[in-house]
């Protein structure tokens, strides 16, 4: 009872359609709520972020703003030169987390205007700057480094 060529093509196309539909549904749903947008402090202030929405923010860690407490709670401020954003975080900071350096944090904006981060990324090594940081700093004209995110 082998199928004719036409039937087989029909079945194959049908199957492909089903798998494609599943994949498209998954991807479109995920694209709506699993993707995180990146903002600088100034952008964040001018837009109205809905509470509980996951965001990424980035900028320079303001000198003198880092406060560490005993239970691994950390507070610091991120600046882009015009606006300052307070960030609260509990956890371990990356090796290259230093005041005056670039940083990216992911989390949610609290109603009091503090950014509650659950992950913090700094520069991975002396040559590598997260692209968003370089981008945010370049936008503000603060970044004086090389043009590209990754440099030799």
């Amino acid at each position, binding site marked *: *009872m*082998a*199928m*004719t*060529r036409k039937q*087989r093509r029909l*079945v*194959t196309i049908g*199957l*492909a359609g089903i*798998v*494609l539909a*599943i*994949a498209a549904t*998954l*991807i479109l*749903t*995920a*694209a709506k709520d*699993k*993707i*995180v*947008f*990146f903002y600088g402090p100034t952008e964040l202030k001018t837009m109205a972020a809905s509470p509980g929405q996951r965001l*990424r923010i980035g900028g320079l860690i303001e000198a003198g703003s880092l406060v560490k407490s*005993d*239970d*691994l709670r950390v507070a610091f401020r991120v600046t882009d030169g015009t606006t300052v954003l307070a960030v609260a975080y509990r*956890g*371990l*900071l990356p*090796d*290259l987390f230093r005041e005056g350096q670039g940083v990216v944090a*992911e989390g949610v904006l609290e109603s009091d205007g503090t950014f509650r981060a659950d992950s913090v990324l700094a520069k*991975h*090594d*002396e040559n*590598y*700057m*997260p*692209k*968003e940081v370089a*981008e945010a700093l370049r936008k503000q004209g603060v970044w004086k480094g090389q043009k*590209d*995110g*990754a*440099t*030799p």
Partner: protein
Amino acid sequence: MTVELGHYALILALALAFVQMTVPLWGSLARDPALMRVGRMAAWASFGFVAFSYMALTMAYVNSDFSVLNVVMNSHSAKPLIYKISGVWSNHEGSMMLWVLILVLFAALVAWRGGGMPERLLASVLSVQGAIAFAFILFVVVTSNPFERVFPIPVEGQGLNPVLQDPGLAIHPPLLYLGYVGFSIAYSFAVGALIHGRIDAVFARFVRPWTLLAWLFLTLGISMGSYWAYYELGWGGWWFWDPVENASLMPWLMGTALVHCTVVMEKRDALKVWTILLAILTFSLSLLGAFIVRSGVLTSVHSFASDPTRGVFILGILTFFVGGGLALFAWRAPLLRQGGLFAAVSREGALIVNNLFLAATCAAVLIGTLYPLALEAISGAAISVGAPFFNATAVPLFVMLLAFLPIGQTLAWKRGNLLGAAQRMMVALGISILVSLVMLSMVHGGPVAAPLGVGLGAWLILGSVSEIVSRSWRRGATLRIFVVRAFGLPRAAWGAALAHAGIGVTVIGVAATGWGVENLGVLKPGERIEIGAYSLVLEKSFVRNGQGFREDVARFSVMENGEFAGTVETGKRVHAGRDMPTTEAGILTLGLGQVYASVNDFHADGSVSLKAYWKPLVLLIWLGSVLMAAGGGLALIDRRSRIGIVVRSKAAALLAGRPA
């Protein structure tokens, strides 16, 4: 002097690659055997020259020849020998040399093993492989010359990035490149066959071993890279959905599809058009990976030095080979005659479903990887697409494929019996569901996905066992006959079963991460931190001086339910001449699980802050991938994979219980 000779040899290899690209193709079109034979000689010769060139570069590293810029930038005279040798591919220029070396190695292997191939097919294949080699050698010579001299000659080199001074560097890139670049052979076969115009089961028999070989190296390369990142970066994870990881996963997914559909083409002479398309797409994804890593469009842990000209050059290579391959495909594919017919419910049908799901998974990964780039280019908005996206798209698609795999595996060719297949798999399915339920009721806490995942893993493993058993066992047969039959099964059948069981093992390891425990804290000496049934007690922190680095170390005793189980040391290293501290994770393997400690800070009062993890069954993740590769290896040494042997003896086929 050797350095100049190396450079010169590379340029000669470039010229030879040009000969290999043009002359055999001309010979093949003009049906001139003498011209076609040039292809094999050119392939051998260009391998010889590239190998010489590569050795010259390696010698410059081994002898610490600091008149070579590349050596100055990436080496140091005090470096251990193994890192001098592996340091060659630690940087953009050197790794391109490795890439080119493997490219011409595969061409030489095809030239060597291809004696039994139709002459015109071999000539076209070598010609296409020559074109790829020509493009990449030209890329190295024009944009990424590793032999560049420097003057004045520095006294000492700048050393190798400390993260790369690890056995992982010696293992991961060569395996990965053997996989990545190995798929170029599948591409050359596909395009060569399109030029040549004859595509049949014979073609599939020749291309299949090369595809399997590339696939098994890529499997090992990805998995070793994952383990390296896990223990070296100190982040506690083994897969980050980093763009570069995705760049290696995509060819793996497509390559897996290709490995499966070449079976259909070889045995049933069907799915020809699709097989050819997959072969082109798989290597295209390898090229896309090269572009992602080397152009600087995406930043990641893996980023090499970026230089716009290199990005544009690779984009040119990518466009030419992908566009050219697909254009040729569009022109020639309609000429292909469809072969063997089959019912919807059959092994062929099941493999179509396999291919569809793999392609869909790959598409999800591709979209997640490239979407941020596209969006930024169009609207300027910066977004991050990370684990949540892939866990909601690629993972469920792949899980659907796995859930269906054991049934598909047992369907007969041409016309399968779904009911019969279900009956054969009943026991396996029953036990797997039972495993899930028992896990669900016994283990409290953790996500529901974990016991379900373990059940899925069990389903895959038991499904493979069932497949072997049902093919060997006959009603009324003695145990001895059963064993003889089982061992009489083709190695490819064992290979498939082993690889499928291997993915089951990996699935269990991944599922068990759901039961992982992590905790962070600040500890003074004598204090403890709990992670599940384990606790870490800080013994002491001290300073240690190693070869070229100074390390703050924290030593912990690991207690299992109050009893001493071992010690772990985790530290921060500062390497001479670098201001970047690196984290050294401390790992204690207990059974198949691991205690993983990663120190973050040493405080003035002698306390340390750290993150500690208990990772149950974590070793299964990598163990499973080794089983998958071993399965690929078994299929590779199947007698039918060997070129020239077309049919197994009828007696052996009868003993196996099924026509082979």
